[in-house]
């Protein structure tokens, strides 16, 4: 018998792995976190670096999508101005459930150094945030670690449970 053939003698003679619904669904969800391209400022450059070959987000199954309808996670990378606030809310509403938000960098977390009239003081005033990444700007490693923590968070949830939509209010 050639080496590459399936070894039918294991698993009771069948090419089968047993698992639970939760695990298989969460395995799929956590390993295909498609991100919405949301580079608003300099953090966007670090986000692009995370997606490029040196850091390679594709290994995590994280592929940037240009449409909110195809995206699972919104990585808010950069300063959110008050003029743009209504659009981030609209794009968040267009994403399909289940959806997550990563707030990347000081500006998205708290407004950062832009303590002025034109900047939203934290993106969590507009949309619910799952993960805050510190830094100005965070290194690509930070974003990678953030995505791994998000994977862990997704795996910790029961997939069979009816999804409760996250709402700020």
């Amino acid at each position: 018998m050639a080496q590459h053939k399936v070894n039918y003698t294991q698993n009771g003679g069948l090419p089968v792995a047993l698992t639970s619904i939760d695990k298989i669904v969460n395995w799929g969800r956590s390993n295909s976190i498609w991100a919405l391209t949301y580079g608003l400022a300099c953090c966007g450059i670090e986000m692009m670096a995370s997606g490029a070959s040196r850091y390679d987000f594709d290994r995590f199954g994280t592929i940037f999508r240009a449409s909110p309808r195809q995206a699972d996670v919104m990585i808010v990378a950069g300063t959110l101005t008050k003029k743009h606030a209504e659009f981030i809310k609209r794009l968040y509403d267009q994403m399909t459930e289940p959806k997550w938000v990563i707030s990347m960098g000081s500006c998205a977390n708290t407004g950062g150094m832009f303590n002025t009239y034109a900047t939203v003081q934290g993106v969590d005033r507009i949309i619910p945030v799952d993960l805050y990444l510190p830094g100005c700007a965070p290194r690509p490693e930070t974003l990678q670690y953030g995505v791994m923590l998000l994977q862990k968070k997704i795996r910790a949830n029961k997939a069979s449970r009816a999804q409760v939509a996250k709402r700020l209010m």
Partner: protein
Amino acid sequence: MRAYKPKDNVQAKAYYTDRFYVSPQVPKSPVESDEIFAKDLEAIKANFTVLDAYIQVEQMVVYINPQDNFKVLKLLRDECEYTQLSEMSAIDWLATRGGFEIFYQMLSMNKRKRIRIKMFINKGESVNSVEKLFRSADWSEREMFDMFGIEANGHPFMKRILMPYDWQGFPLLKTYPLQGDEFAAWYEVDKIYGKEARDIIGPELRDSAKVDRYDSERFARLGYEVPKGTVITGNEPKNEENYQEEGGVFMIKKFDKKDSVVVDDPQR
């Protein structure tokens, strides 16, 4: 050795408080000291009233009456070779003089000279648009309207350019607070969720340097994370940093630090 200064609470202290400090003026020289500028000034003086003129930092500054601005700029463009309007805006002198100073910075590539045309308008007055002469004035005049509320008569699209169309207030006025008035503070909340959401979302936190390790609502101490809202006593157990759950993940190989190889050759 430098004298020791106590550094506690330096972030809370303003390092500069003299808000209305008047900077010393760069010396001015008479226009006659430069031949080219003297000729240009003669050309302007032949047709228009010149209130004041001098040379400062190798640039001529000419004060004119506000109603002449279009014609003076046309003269400078067509006859004096100042073919570029590199910058224009306004300066807020409301507190001391009750109006605005408008400046037009002109550049002549042929003469290698710069001229600044200045004029003073009172509060509430508008200016003539120079957009028909210089296309660069299109956005500059919109920005002047956006930031100071000075309208340009004859502009084809006199709307805000940087702030949203429904914004209230003019942010570059010296009376406008840096962190915004009440309208600015609640702008995004009012617009997206409505005024009734103000109580739920709450006011903006403006101290972005604030760190409180006993506040588990907004902060998490790395390695000692607790659920949100827990009262922190200081005896929290250490959470070991790991990338995967203890039992491993379905169909994914467990990452083991001991088995991993650290590549320390930078030229690999």
